[in-house]
């Protein structure tokens, strides 16, 4: 039994929905209530810096070697006196982490010999394209804190490698050296 209005019944649902209050799940659920992870949560990686802003990564690729998901790609290169990114001889020239592959296991962190690679608690990594999810070095590098300077620049914590590294505080203590202490104008 078909009536004249049956064909229009579907539109009824459409019109009804148009005037219903929309439901969007917001995040954070309430303003000021962002999810707080546990302090050791494995989130997005970060490439750390020395107190003067030079990079800690030496491009050794041990993270890439350790990675069970083959998510990391690194190429090393030579520092020169004119173009210095890390205090030693070698730095990570290319550094990429593919977050479509990364399983956040943290093996790379364990492998890193210089504590250059650590993980933050950042977990909101969703994005719209594959290429945006391959994080490059500029996205992974830690932000510049006060006293830090964007490389390339000369070593500010010691004239040569010996000075630079032998000036480190003992294991377990914070590295509180600052570039300013070495007499460099901020």
């Amino acid at each position: 039994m078909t009536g004249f209005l049956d064909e229009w019944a579907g539109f009824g649902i459409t019109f009804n929905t148009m005037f219903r209050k929309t439901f969007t799940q917001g995040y954070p659920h309430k303003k000021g209530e962002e999810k707080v992870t546990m302090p050791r949560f494995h989130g997005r990686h970060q490439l750390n810096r020395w107190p003067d802003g030079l990079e800690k990564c030496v491009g050794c690729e041990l993270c890439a070697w350790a990675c069970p998901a083959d998510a990391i790609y690194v190429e090393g290169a030579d520092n020169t006196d004119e173009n210095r990114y890390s205090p030693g001889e070698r730095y990570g020239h290319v550094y990429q982490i593919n977050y479509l592959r990364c399983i956040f296991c943290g093996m790379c962190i364990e492998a890193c010999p210089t504590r250059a690679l650590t993980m933050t608690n950042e977990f909101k990594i969703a994005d719209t394209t594959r290429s945006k999810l391959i994080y490059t070095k500029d996205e992974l590098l830690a932000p510049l804190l006060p006293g830090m300077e964007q490389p390339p620049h000369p070593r500010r914590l010691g004239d040569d490698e010996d000075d630079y590294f032998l000036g480190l505080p003992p294991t377990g203590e914070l590295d509180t050296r600052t570039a300013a202490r070495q007499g460099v104008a901020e």
Partner: protein
Amino acid sequence: MSVDAKTSAEVQPRPDLVNLTIDGVPVSVPKGTLIIRAAEMIGTNIPRFCDHPLLDPVGACRQCMVDIPDAGNGRGFPKPQASCTMPVAEGMVVNTQVTSEVAKKAQQGIMEFLLINHPLDCPICDKGGECPLQNQALSHGRGESRFGGLKRTFPKPVNVSAQILLDRERCVLCARCTRFSEQISGDPFIALVERGALQQVGIYEQDPYESYFSGNVVQICPVGALTSAAYRFQSRPFDLVSTTTTCEHCAAGCELRTDHRHHQVKRRLAGNNPAINEEWNCDKGRFGFVSAREDRLKYPLVRRDGVLKPASWPEAIDAAVEGLKKAGEAVGVQTGGRLTVENALGYSRFARAVLGTNNIDFRSRPSSDEEAQFLGAFVAGRAQLRYSDLDAAKRVVLVAFEPEDEMPIAFLRLRKLVRKQGLRVQTIAPFASVGSRKLSAELIAAAPGGEAAALESLTDLDGSAIILVGERAATLPGLLSTVARVADSTGARVAWMPRRAGDKGALDAGCLPGLLPGGRPVTDVAARVDVASAWGVDSLPAGPGLAADEQFAALAAGTLKAVVVAGVEPGDLADPAAALAGLEAADFVVSIEQRPSEVTERADVVFPAALVEEQSGHFRNWEGQDLTVGLVTTATQTPFTDLRILAALADALGKPLGMRTPAAAWTAFHELQDWDGGRPAAPAVAPAAAGEGLVLAGWRELLDASRGNDGEIALRATARRPVLRVSPATAERLGLDEVARVAANGRELVLPVVVTADMVDDVVWAPLNPGEDRLAVVPGRPVAVTAVTFEGGEDA
């Protein structure tokens, strides 16, 4: 009966062997074997750093300690002994780290000592991941270090040469590099200096470490102390994909291990082929590969309105075919000397069966008809002598051949034989070169042109002697005829030593006007029928073909209309100006090249060809051995090899080439290698009378301005300084002091003068391709030399 049930009593000792017991296992080894090798025979690996099978034992690192409770005479050694220096003795009892706590403790102690000052900077060390120290520290060392002090450090890295870098704090003082330099290559410019904790590898400040074999010290360094500027920080071992291949630089045929990362070759190492290069190679073979990828031709070019413009493959093929059709049979083909056998056969068949001409020549260098005859009579289609024949020889005579520059691995082989077996080397040359001195060669002094007479003066040659004649003999009239005659009358054996990797293969593939594949003479009807039936064509051209120089002359004269050129540098030819004039005058030039060159600039159609690392195939080295060229990277910048380009051209010309893959060409090549018919007669050219006045002598040094290494800055920096050499009398006569200008045929070269005591008078020696400026004259021809004086002192 199982193997285990066999007791030592049941194993019959062999009388010619020495019997000893290692870890309770009876071993029989030849007399003189070192304990460390005897242990390898029962599968026990004693850790070692300084020990290398090809170097003399030295016992420098002390890592290979073993306990010897009985030295064969009933008495034992009170302390552990180094097993890499001690030969076995009858009845000896050896306990390695496997069974002896004493040996194990000694080895662990040594390892701990070695690691005290080792920086453990493995993450930034090029050796990390393939490092014997790293591996053996894990397998034979203690897990923990007891050393709490500061490690010794040195400023780093030190340039031993422009190419070789030294990180002194990583060194374990094994002396492999210094022993290699002294024993194998004969360039002892590095040595261990200082004492105690400060002992280090040092250089003589005055004499930089300039060796053609310096890359080998990087490869044999058991730690990361020696690294190369070219590979430093380029990659880690676990990124690399290795392919075994053959070096494309000279005709020695060295096996290489080529490593690539992401389809870019990062480094090349010497492969291990005991019959050819043992475990060594030369620096050109090791470091000379970057140039090839810097300025590649990536797409075909077609000349439109006088300008070369990028074109699609079909467009370029159509353009080439149109030009070649217009020229008909008046076409020449020049292949250059660097092709794989497969590509060379492609050119040979393309010229003869598709274009219908015998105008094909692989010699992109000064050549002569006499040489073509000599090659046809003695070399083409035949196996030459082998390296093993050199091993068995009592005497080697070098004629127009400078092994260190022209075939470095043959030089290393000769040097080893001189050192180990007392081989007698004689060289017919204008002076005793650096290489000749390292071979302790007797100099038979002869000015260029006088070699034939000098060879005939050697009346005591016999069957135990080998004459090695270089490709430069082509420029000296009568020399190859004399070599053939002397060999025939004395029984001495002869080998022709080409300089380029593709020369012997091209010769056997029929890339000479008068020779078909397998050394068949073109003039022989049966040979032509043989090849025509194999190639499925009705007939092959019978007329005489033009050699390379003749082709350029014919192009200029207009009798030849078009030319197909692959891998030829006009500057390498006897008369570069004539070659360029020929290319300019030609109606149509097809260039099949990898990189832009003087030929591609003058071409009407340019096809980009694949590099040797982008194709598979074979090189035939000077011996006639076929050596595999491995496909290193599949991500090619250009898809076509020479062979595939020729096949496409042949298809478009309507006469299929019949092969388009290396595998098909390889099969076709071998179908045509057996020929028992006639050979061309031996050449009989009378030596020319010695030239009047000052004549040029010279050869191309290994590291020169050749296209194969022009992008290698560090490698080129280790080349020898170009100089002019003259005898003291000539220097005095011409008033030469510090700098002189040598000129011929409108080109000149200004170089520092070195007065050489044993130089023949009225001869000036100059390197043939030292840099931007080069002479356009072949050795043996007159040149003018004038002193260059700097007036006005420092301002000049």
